[in-house]
């Protein structure tokens, strides 16, 4: 007799998983094999990757196209500065505390911006981020509009040696990316993830099947905000200096992230990874050309949107029907010779 059973992994996903674990081991060992500049670049890549995965969770799965995530990047950065400089916290503790505070702050914001839809939501979130920027510019103890530098002692408290600090910063970035991808992946694999995907495909049917749309979106918004703030803290731990314009830069922390996600393929877990690699490949090869680099970046955005609106991974998936992160369920049948 034949029995049907359900599995979630595929050959491609199992292979991908093995490769990912191996890659992770190799990456974790990078402080022993990579140069200092590579380490720092990889750290930056991981942080962007994490931002991209978070934005993708919001926009690609929950349909919340926010243009204001820089609010939380900057918030996390400022919390790092404030809590270490005035609260005397260890930087890592300060960064995590910044995440918690961001989660708290994001609730009233969500209540406000969730009243808006589509383009209004996008612009509403952008204005909220501007309010953050202008408000932090009024806080003179954090340097007001001039900004502030992270005292050297604070940075030194991370580790005694320079190489120790560099390795730690790298591991923090790698860890953040792995945790974010892991959390997003785990989230999408649970019933909540199923609910979120359902909402994305049809809100009417989803609410008819018992899904509380508002609450599900709120959860996503709060979790993303908290993680975005943590990433923001890590970013500014690398930058060492913060100012309102840098912390709440819509270009650096949102426009480029949208670019990464959409170019890579929104609404997939693979997309942000591919997008991040593409973005950095472009930047590392062209950034020295000044204006020409930026013009090229703009042109890439336009061309990809016209030729492959589902992004690079969308193209690949449509062509080969593969999935590296086993999110979907497959029903298989097996001939059960044992009987029962």
């Amino acid at each position: 007799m034949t029995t049907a059973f359900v599995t979630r992994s595929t050959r491609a996903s199992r292979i991908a998983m093995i490769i990912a674990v191996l890659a992770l081991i190799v990456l974790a060992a990078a402080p022993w094999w990579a140069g200092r500049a590579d380490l720092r670049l990889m750290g930056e890549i991981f942080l962007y990757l994490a931002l991209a995965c978070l934005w993708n969770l919001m926009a690609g799965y929950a349909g919340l196209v926010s243009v204001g995530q820089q609010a939380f990047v900057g918030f996390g950065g400022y919390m790092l500065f404030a809590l270490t400089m005035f609260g005397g916290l260890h930087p890592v503790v300060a960064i995590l505390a910044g995440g918690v505070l961001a989660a708290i702050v994001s609730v009233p914001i969500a209540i406000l911006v969730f009243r808006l839809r589509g383009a209004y939501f996008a612009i509403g979130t952008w204005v909220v981020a501007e309010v953050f920027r202008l408000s932090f510019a009024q806080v003179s103890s954090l340097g007001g509009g001039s900004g502030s530098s992270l005292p050297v002692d604070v940075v030194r408290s991370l580790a005694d040696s320079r190489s120790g600090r560099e390795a730690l910063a790298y591991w923090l970035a790698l860890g953040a990316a792995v945790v974010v991808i892991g959390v997003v992946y785990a989230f999408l694999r649970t019933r909540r993830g199923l609910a979120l995907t359902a909402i994305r495909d049809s809100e009417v049917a989803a609410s008819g099947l018992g899904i509380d749309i508002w609450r599900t979106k709120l959860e996503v918004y709060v979790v993303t905000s908290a993680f975005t703030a943590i990433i923001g803290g890590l970013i500014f731990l690398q930058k060492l200096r913060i100012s309102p314009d840098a912390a709440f830069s819509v270009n650096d922390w949102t426009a480029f992230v949208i670019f990464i996600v959409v170019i890579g393929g929104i609404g997939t877990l693979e997309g942000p990874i591919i997008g991040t690699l593409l973005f950095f490949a472009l930047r590392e090869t062209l950034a020295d050309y000044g204006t020409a680099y930026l013009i090229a970046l703009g042109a890439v955005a336009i061309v990809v949107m016209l030729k492959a609106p589902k992004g690079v991974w969308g193209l690949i998936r449509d062509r080969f029907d593969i999935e590296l992160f086993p999110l979907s369920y497959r029903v298989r049948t097996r001939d059960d010779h044992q009987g029962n």
Partner: protein
Amino acid sequence: MMEWTNAIVQGVLLGGLYALFAAGLSLIFGVMRLVNIAHGDLIVLAAYFGLTTSVMLGVHPFAALMVVVPLMAGLGYVLQRGLLNRTLGDDILPPLLVTFGLSVIIQNALLESYSSDPQKLSGGAIETASLQIGGLALGVLPLLTFGIAVVVIALLQWIFYATSLGRGFRAVSDNQDIAQIMGFNKAHVFGLAMALALAVTAIAGILLGIRTSFDPSVGGGRLIFGFEAVIIGGLGNLWGTLAGGVILGVAQTIGAKIDPGWQLLAGHIVFLIVLAVRPNGLFPRVDH
């Protein structure tokens, strides 16, 4: 008391400038739901076109409008038909990303061709002239800007509601498919809407260039005020856009009166309050 009156009056005039920034945005957002991130940069582009024209022909920037308005309108039509039409749909991301790309390209192309030097259009005596009314000094240029904003909006409103072109805009905006089977070429109608929007942009750019100095990077900063004015006013309502601009302007000057640091903040907060109370803006077109 006089100071507060002055703050409000200056805010209203400032609102005229914002309304002018927003009028084009409002038009294209109303007709095709396009969120144009490059709008601010297009305003700056128009200012540069104005600069080149007035320098090359040796004419007053206002006279340069004769060249810049058709130029921008043509650019708008080509841009819409060649590029933006292909990104329109239910999803707001493709137009968002494409116009972001456009914005980056315009900024850097301007930087390449005009350098980052601040430029200014010299409007002559009008820049500094003023009228004394009841103890208030009203700059002629801000008054003129406000007047032009009112005229432009009245004109757009007239086109929108009293001409067959405007009928086409509204029909296509209401229902693209049905408008098409009535013989409207959607791509062409959208092209015309963008042409009109950029014609307004040309006016806004020239007035901006006379009012203050500009460089390739200043466009983005003003974009958000334009969006705010459009949204406060309500989708597809051009007089609402003017009201939105004025509300924003007055909020800013009153905020600044309390503390200069709150000038921009006050505008944004009023915007958020309006949205919290009326998520569709103050005067949405109520026919859906």
